[in-house]
């Protein structure tokens, strides 16, 4: 169980607080994993009292908590929740916050431990951090700690990420900085290492000799919804590939760490980031496809094109879909492409890693034109977390007919206990000071180095690759299919 502390959420009126952070903290409390001496302080601009804030959070927790809402547990939890109204740029507001936290230390026994959660736009980071420092809130008394959680995106490119990291570094030590990527808190993402390194049968096969290629897909049927302005400035590459998908790639591709300490694991992930082959403009034109959704149908209902979404430029070239072929230039993965695709308005919501093994030799059952398909190990990150292995099987009967079958493991039905939400695990880890599931500075900057090459080719080249259109409800532009078809492969059917 973590030590007592005060969790201060900047941007407490935001969606993330209501949908994820408070339900996560409530669930931790309901599971009995929250220390008795823990307070939550919401810091935001809007005028609210503790009571109105709690009432709003109660409604949100009832709606979004995975375990429902127990009145008794909520009452006990809500008693520890407070609201602190202030502008982010108001120095006096931080002084009052410092006084209030000190008071809570005394009254609630939070022992001077602080966890600051920056759930705000990146533009606000610097000001908040400076004000925290000015108010002395980044300092720790003997035997206590102060940490900060920074939400993605960590900058918009390498330069801004470096600048942001410098700002954070000025206020907090790297070991006290937790860059959150909620994908890493998902049970199956954590299970990737267990699958690879706690089982004897996979690791011997986990290399270029036996693996043909890897596909990492993050698909969602939603459009940009109300996030038009943000998405216009970010796009799918920065919003998803740079963070979530490269993290998943690292977990799949990394070498076994020497131990399970945070830095041992992160050292191995950084090596993968560094091994990503830099892409030239020619590589990008050939191996990266960007797309944008047009009108179509999702769930049988017609939906509109990206360019007609609320607060999206009618001539926008922002990508809502990316497919790319990445190469990891190290001994283990020589010649094994990693195909990554991410998109909005795709037919279903699913994030999965598919490790496709090489075909059986072209003799016996695989002879000639009889391509019976390869073994595929699928790690489902969300929803329906689990793992499946596709293999070939003879169908019963006198004739020799081979069809694929699946061995399927579902977290949801295999264990009596429901999987915790990603934010539950990550908040607990941050409170406990375990940074294993958080991104380190060099990891973030290395990822930007790779992504910037693509962004630059798209936005600064004289002859940028086109933005390919795809109808909403389809699996992306045909150019993405051609990307794999050129290599004699195809996207797996999800």
């Amino acid at each position, binding site marked *: 169980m973590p030590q007592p502390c005060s969790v201060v959420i900047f941007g407490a009126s935001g969606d993330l607080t209501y949908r994820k952070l408070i339900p996560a903290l409530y669930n931790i409390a309901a599971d009995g994993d929250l220390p008795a001496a823990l307070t939550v302080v919401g810091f935001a601009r809007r005028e609210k009292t503790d009571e109105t804030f709690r009432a709003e959070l109660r409604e949100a927790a009832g709606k979004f908590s995975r375990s429902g809402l127990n009145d008794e547990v909520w009452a006990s939890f809500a008693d520890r929740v407070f609201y602190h109204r202030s502008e982010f740029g108001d120095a006096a507001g931080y002084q009052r916050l410092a006084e209030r936290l000190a008071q809570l230390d005394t009254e609630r026994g939070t022992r001077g431990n602080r966890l600051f959660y920056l759930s705000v736009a990146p533009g606000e980071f610097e000001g908040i951090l400076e004000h925290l420092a000015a108010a002395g809130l980044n300092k720790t008394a003997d035997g206590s700690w102060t940490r900060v959680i920074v939400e993605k995106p960590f900058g918009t490119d390498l330069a801004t990420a470096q600048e942001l990291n410098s700002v954070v570094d000025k206020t907090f030590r790297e070991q006290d900085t937790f860059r959150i990527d909620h994908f890493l808190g998902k049970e199956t993402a954590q299970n990737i290492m267990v699958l690879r390194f706690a089982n004897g049968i996979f690791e011997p096969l986990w290399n270029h000799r036996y693996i043909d290629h890897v596909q990492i897909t993050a698909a969602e049927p939603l459009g940009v919804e109300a996030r038009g302005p943000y998405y216009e400035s970010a796009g799918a590459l920065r919003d998803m590939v740079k963070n979530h998908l490269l993290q998943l790639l690292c977990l799949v591709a990394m070498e076994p760490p020497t131990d399970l300490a945070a830095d041992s694991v992160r050292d191995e992930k950084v090596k993968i980031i560094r091994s990503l082959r830099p892409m030239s403009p020619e590589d990008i034109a050939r191996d990266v496809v960007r797309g944008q959704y047009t009108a179509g*149908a999702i769930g049988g209902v017609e939906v509109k094109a990206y360019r007609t979404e609320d607060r999206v430029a009618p001539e926008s070239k922002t990508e809502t879909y990316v497919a790319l072929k990445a190469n990891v230039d190290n001994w283990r993965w020589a010649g094994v492409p990693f195909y990554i695709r991410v998109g909005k308005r795709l037919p279903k919501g699913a994030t999965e890693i598919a490790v496709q093994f090489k075909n059986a030799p072209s003799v016996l059952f695989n002879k000639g034109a009889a391509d019976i398909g390869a073994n595929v190990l699928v790690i489902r990150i969300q929803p*329906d977390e689990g793992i499946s292995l596709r293999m070939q099987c003879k169908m019963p009967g006198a004739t*020799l007919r081979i069809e694929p079958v699946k061995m399927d493991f579902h977290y949801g039905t295999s264990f009596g206990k429901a999987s915790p939400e990603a934010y539950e695990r990550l908040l607990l880890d941050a409170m406990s000071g375990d940074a294993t599931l958080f991104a380190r500075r060099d990891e973030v900057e290395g990822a930007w180095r790779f992504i910037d090459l693509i962004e630059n080719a798209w936005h600064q080249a004289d002859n940028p690759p086109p933005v390919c259109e795809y109808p909403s*409800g389809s*699996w992306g532009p045909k150019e993405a299919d051609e990307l794999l078809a050129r290599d004699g492969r195809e996207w797996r059917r999800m």
Partner: protein
Amino acid sequence: MSATLDLSALGTQVPVDQISRELKKLWHTGSATPPTRASLVNFAVYCRSTEAMAANTELISEFTRNHACRALLICVCREAVEPRVSAWVNAHCHLSRAGAKSVCCEQISFLLEGELKGRLTNIVFSHLDSDLPLYFWLQGDPVEDLNPTLWPWIDRLIIDSLPWTHPRWQFDRLHQSLHTAKATLTLRDLNWTRSLYFRQALAQFFDAPENLTHLPALRSVCLTHAPGYRSTALLLVGWLSAQLRWTLKTPGPLVFHSPVSGDIDIQLDEQPGPAIGGCTLTCSPATFSLRRHTGERYLHAETNLPGVPALYHLLPAGPDTTLELLDEEMTRGARHTLYLRALEAITFLL
């Protein structure tokens, strides 16, 4: 949708965006021995009337007794003015052969009204059980253009050409559509499956070397078929033509020419009874004959060779009902090369 139509057999009506959640609920029964969900294939059924939805659900329920699948029942009613989509989820559970476990298959049903505009494709894409093959049963006439992006996803296209009203034109349309399909797609015509056991029995006659010597003397083929089953009988003729390398000489009277046997007269007789009631090959002076009587599950095979007493034996007659035909289909993995050759031989006669 007809207000009076009872669609309760489809299960629970659910919002389209809640299908996955509602499916999960099906499996959380709270029972100590929860049912086992099984799926080896995605089985999509495309129909065009709400009446067919209820009938198909009944059929799927029986089908899942032997073939674990995720069933997608899709009914398209384009004539509706307002586009609308309705969805239902259901599970078909049967005791496994061992008897201890209840094995269940999911059925998701959709009623798509109004213009499709990519909605059909999206629905198929959205609800497939990943990594498993897609068998797509296209019921009725293939007169409508399906979205070309759907074709590459289909592993096995099942049709039944029997009720087609303009088969020559409809086959032509189907061929055009198949050009966008992937190379591994297998086309299966239930009308072709109807004659499967007759074809096997005919071939079996000539497994015996003493019978095979008479095949070059084949002079006539006499086929009996039930009213409405002429195309089934013609496909059987097409199979003979493709296998024995015949070419058409005259369409009426129907005569083929064999490079080995010379001219072969084909006689098609329509009689009440099974889809195909009999087939006699006359290889003068030998005859090889198959007969099937109404209600019987066996074919009566008779071999008459000169100077030898007639030989009789029984052979299985094969599937009759749609469910039996589908059952048969699921146990077979052959490609459609021979079927297309047989079809080519008789297309102009359809």
